[in-house]
């Protein structure tokens, strides 16, 4: 077994007993069950679930990730004093942290949907996109957590920055986009808006999923532009690549920092 895999294994041993992670799974289970029960399943349930995924998954990933890395600092030091190389340690830490988060997410969202699929029909394509978006957001915001924990020596600052990142992407970004639309309403905005969407993984997830339903038509002219762009294969591919870049870029920078860092 590779060194990274060994690090992953022991992190999993630690994290399966983590109360925060258990809480996260239970909250997702509860919310999904409630939404399915109230919303009656089908498309509407998936759309309501979308908001849960877009808000909760980035928040949990970036906050839990940052907190975990600060708590594990001395332990990382201890492991790096063993015959463990830094790239292996970095890979082990990342996989060991994202795997339980992805499992918690999959279980919390997937289990109630699976149970309810016995009685109501769930649009499969939309469900796959919902799950894939949630998993990618977990990978992205955990990678961002690595960047923050490496960048800020001080724990309180790092956690503050994590909260700020979440606020910016999941809450404020939309408001800013709206401001742009209002301020420059007289100009053709389709291309700038497409670019703005590609720059925010949370928005990207939202657009991808909403376009699976007819409600995209309700999004007006911009909706039509998005539909034209994201609706076809090339658009989907572009969006997926953008999300993958969002995973790879912070990880690449993070690994660089991790290799050079003094512990």
């Amino acid at each position, binding site marked *: *077994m590779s*060194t990274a895999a*060994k*690090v992953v*294994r*022991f*992190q999993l*041993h*630690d*994290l399966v*007993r*983590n109360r925060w992670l258990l809480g996260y799974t239970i909250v997702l289970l509860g919310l999904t069950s409630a939404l399915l029960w109230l919303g009656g399943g089908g498309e509407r349930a998936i759309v309501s679930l979308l908001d849960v995924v877009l808000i909760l998954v980035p928040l949990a990933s970036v906050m839990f990730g940052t907190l975990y890395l600060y*708590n*594990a*600092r*001395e*332990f990382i*030091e*201890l*492991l*790096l*004093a*063993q*015959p*463990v*190389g830094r790239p292996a340690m970095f890979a082990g830490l990342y996989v060991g942290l994202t795997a339980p988060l992805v499992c918690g997410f999959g279980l919390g969202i997937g289990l109630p949907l699976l149970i309810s699929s016995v009685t109501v029909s769930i649009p499969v394509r939309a469900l796959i996109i919902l799950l894939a978006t949630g998993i990618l957001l977990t990978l992205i915001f955990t990678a961002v957590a690595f960047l923050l924990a490496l960048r800020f020596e001080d724990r309180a600052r790092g956690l503050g920055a994590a909260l700020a990142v979440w606020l910016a992407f999941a809450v404020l970004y939309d408001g800013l986009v709206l401001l742009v639309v209002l301020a420059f309403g007289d100009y053709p905005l389709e291309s700038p808006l497409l670019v703005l969407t590609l720059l925010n993984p949370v928005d990207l997830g939202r657009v991808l999923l909403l376009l699976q339903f007819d409600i995209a038509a309700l999004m007006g002219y911009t909706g039509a532009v998005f539909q034209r762009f994201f609706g076809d294969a090339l658009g989907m591919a572009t969006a997926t690549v953008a999300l993958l870049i969002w995973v790879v870029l912070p990880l690449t920078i993070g690994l660089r920092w991790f290799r*050079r860092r*003094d*512990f």
Partner: protein
Amino acid sequence: MTSPAVEAVGLSKRFGTREVLKGIDLRIAPGRVTGLVGPNAAGKSTLIKIVLGLVRADLGRLAVHGETLNGKVDYRRAIGYMPQAAKFPENLTGREVLRMLQDLRGADGGLDEELIEQFRLEPELDKPIRTLSGGTRQKLSAATTFLFRPSLLILDEPTAGLDPVASGIFKDKVRRAREAGATVLLASHTLSELEELADDIVFLLEGRVRFHGPLASLIELTGLANLERAVASLMRENGA
């Protein structure tokens, strides 16, 4: 002459504007206990961390057992490191921590479980780390340090969290390891402990080596009765 266990040549390190090590030259003799002393912020921890590969030097060269580090990791198989305050993952048990380290290092030379026995750690090993007292965690850390029969022991204030009985057991263990041929690098503020254990003393002050030699010759040099007074006099001489 045998090659030194640790050899530093012109080792320099700065953190931001603070110059922590200013060109350290040092040869730690194998098979001896070398005490690392100096006031706070003298650069002891940084030096130790460079030996472990946790901190990278800006300038200079460092070799362990004749092998220049340069980002290598395998040399750490020969090192047992005990940090000032060990922190293990809270939800793991002591046994899982031991198994993990064993997994990472392999245990070809057989395990040395003497400290587990002498500290009576066995009944504590199946409890989650978060339920253990600070002293018990420190004992666990001590036990892991000796577990793989390392030929180079790096101990950073090892007895700070130990009660007198445990501290005694620990010091006896260090002595036995030395008799078995291990090199020990011991950073400590407890000068009586160094007086008991150390063969040589390295005195660091403001990032430079101010004295390196046998303990006895330091005491002789300063003409004072014990290490504490000798170190205090060195610090005064150097204006610390």
